[in-house]
């Protein structure tokens, strides 16, 4: 049947989601009054539904030779950039910045604290923050961001100032925060809008400063003269207590970790039984147990694993063997692997995580992430989860409220929903579980840190604490 122009326009508007009330009434009138009109509508809507599946199943277009750089390619790149920028920058719980105090702990990876752990807000006032190992990100109220690699000690002494006792530190000073000052055992470094690194080991009388980009000024303690400027790519060793000039040295940039690494490692499965591997050198900083959580996000097929291994410089140091399946009709089974590095087994090196898929048919496809978490998440208790958590999925802002009495609430875009009405939540081995009366499905979350809630068996982004 060839539709009338009117029917065609109305069906297009319906499928595009742009139909208006009066048009919808007219469309309903047309399709309920005429079976061929209804069949036309159902054929078009059905085709609309199948389109994504057909586009991903048929690869002939993608494999055509030499796609020209036509109008679409550049345009789509621009549009994609717009979309990506929008998605990435849509704040979930406000930007991660220090508020209230002089600085905040904004990230930590595999940190082993020396003494009492530091909470999110860091008050100035003489408290030395000390870690045995791991990576600690501290963001000053000025916007200056520090990434400190343990063993290390640092003290916040002002909104844009600190004292670095020992360890490795990389500072990134954004525009507006110029003048960030850090006092070290052998001298003082003042920044002029830049990214720079310091390594200090007072027991060896060693302190070095290097500049990734921009400019800093260095004033050795032993020298009462003018501070010395240092520019991009330069590094110096400070003379300590001895009166001698600064000495230029090669700047070995690889020694420093400049960004807090993502714990979320992407995987793309295409049916091969070859192992999947990820470089986790910047995520593993100590012995003990780590959790590897496999999460499916999209794709029609399941990823089935039978073994997970952690390797140091190519040698297996930890292994967990059991079947795991994610993505089978969007369900998740046994997707947490426990990997224990024996005491004394950690050293700096190339750490690799390796996952062994089971036998699959050759054209399977799915994708998702692998999350590597500290085993300390298993210590979380109910009180740690109580609060309001927010996340964005497919453009909708969701809020989950977990109350101390075991009840919970789910909201979409600020409006309450009945989804969690009969649900109860509790904590088992550090994992929050939401159970529903009418379903065997259990939703699981783990607490990455005080303000980050991770979905273990749902394909959603992490939630941030908002209350």
């Amino acid at each position, binding site marked *: 049947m060839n539709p009338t122009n009117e029917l*065609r326009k109305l069906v*297009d508007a319906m*499928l*595009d*989601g742009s*139909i208006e009330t009066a048009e*919808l009434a007219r469309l*309903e009138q047309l399709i*309920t009054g005429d*079976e061929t009109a*209804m*069949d036309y*509508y*159902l*054929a*078009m*809507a*059905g*085709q*609309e*539904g*199948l*389109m*994504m*599946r*057909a*586009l991903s*199943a*048929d690869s002939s*277009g993608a494999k055509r030779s030499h*796609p*020209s750089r*036509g*109008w*679409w*390619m550049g*345009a*789509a790149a621009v*549009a*994609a950039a*717009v*979309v990506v920028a929008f998605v990435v920058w849509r704040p979930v719980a406000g930007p991660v910045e220090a508020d209230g105090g002089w600085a905040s702990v904004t990230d930590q990876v595999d940190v082993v604290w020396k003494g009492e752990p530091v909470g999110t807000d860091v008050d100035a006032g003489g408290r030395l923050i000390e870690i045995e190992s791991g990576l600690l990100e501290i963001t000053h109220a000025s916007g200056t961001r520090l990434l400190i690699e343990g063993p290390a000690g640092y003290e916040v002494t002002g909104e844009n100032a600190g004292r670095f006792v020992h360890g490795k530190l990389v500072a990134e000073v954004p525009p507006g925060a110029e003048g960030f000052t850090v006092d070290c055992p052998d001298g003082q470094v003042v920044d002029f809008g830049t990214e720079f690194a310091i390594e200090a080991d007072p027991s060896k009388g060693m302190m070095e400063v290097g500049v990734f980009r921009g400019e800093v000024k260095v004033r050795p303690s032993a020298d009462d003269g003018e501070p010395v400027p240092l520019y991009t790519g330069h590094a110096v060793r400070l003379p300590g207590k001895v009166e001698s000039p600064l000495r230029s040295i090669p700047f070995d940039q690889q020694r420093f970790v400049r960004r807090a690494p993502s714990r979320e490692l992407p995987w793309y499965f295409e049916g091969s039984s070859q192992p999947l591997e990820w470089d986790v050198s910047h995520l593993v900083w100590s012995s003990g147990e780590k959790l590897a959580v496999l999460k499916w996000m999209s794709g029609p097929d399941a990823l089935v694993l039978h073994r997970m291994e952690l390797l140091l410089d190519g040698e297996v140091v930890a292994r967990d063997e059991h079947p795991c*399946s994610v993505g089978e*009709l*969007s*369900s998740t*089974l*046994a997707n947490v692997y426990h990997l224990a590095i024996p005491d004394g087994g950690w050293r700096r090196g190339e750490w690799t995580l390796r996952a062994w898929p089971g036998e699959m048919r050759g054209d399977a496809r799915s994708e998702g992430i692998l999350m590597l978490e500290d085993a300390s998440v298993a210590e979380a208790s109910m009180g740690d989860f109580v609060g309001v958590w927010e996340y964005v999925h497919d453009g909708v802002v969701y809020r989950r409220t977990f109350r101390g009495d*075991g009840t919970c609430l789910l*909201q*979409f875009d600020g*409006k309450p929903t009945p989804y969690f009405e009969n649900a*109860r*939540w*509790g*904590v*088992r081995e550090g994992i929050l579980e939401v*159970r529903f009366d009418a*379903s065997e*499905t259990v939703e699981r979350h783990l607490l990455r840190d005080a303000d980050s809630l991770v979905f273990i068996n749902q394909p959603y982004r992490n939630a941030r604490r908002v209350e």
Partner: protein
Amino acid sequence: MNPDPKPEPMLEDSASAREVAALIRGLQPTLTEFAAGLLGGADGADDVVQETNLFLWERRADYEPGSDFRAWALRVARFKVMAARRDVARERRLRFSDETLERLAARAEERAGGAERRLKALGGCLGRIRLQDRRLLEWKYARRGSLTELADAVGESANAIHKKISRLRMALRQCVEKALSQNP
């Protein structure tokens, strides 16, 4: 208050579970067409299909081998569409009235056979369209990209892009019908 601890479910490998999984998998195109028809387009259809899958899987013990699995699956999908519509908070578009929905569901059930063949034919037709048209469809359907943003980026009006989509929809439908009539 902790819920009763339950052991992690084991990977199931019984013959009946495998049969149900295969049945569900085989019904994916049918369920997708059905959900899109009732919802008025692709938006939300995937969610309905996923929820239907999950429901069928959880209730797999209720399935009696030899009974009409498809009819059951479509009933579940219909129920899931109704539930999705009731969830007004997520509604960002107009949906059909209950009465129209009932009639659409009845007709869609009658037409439900052959979705797999339509999907295959659609894939074949997509392989024959112009590359820039295919990219446009990928933008809209696979990436769920905004047509307004695409229009801005390529310097065309949103209306012109919508018209292109409309022409492609119609051309693909005709191509699919032709393919099916030649290989019935």
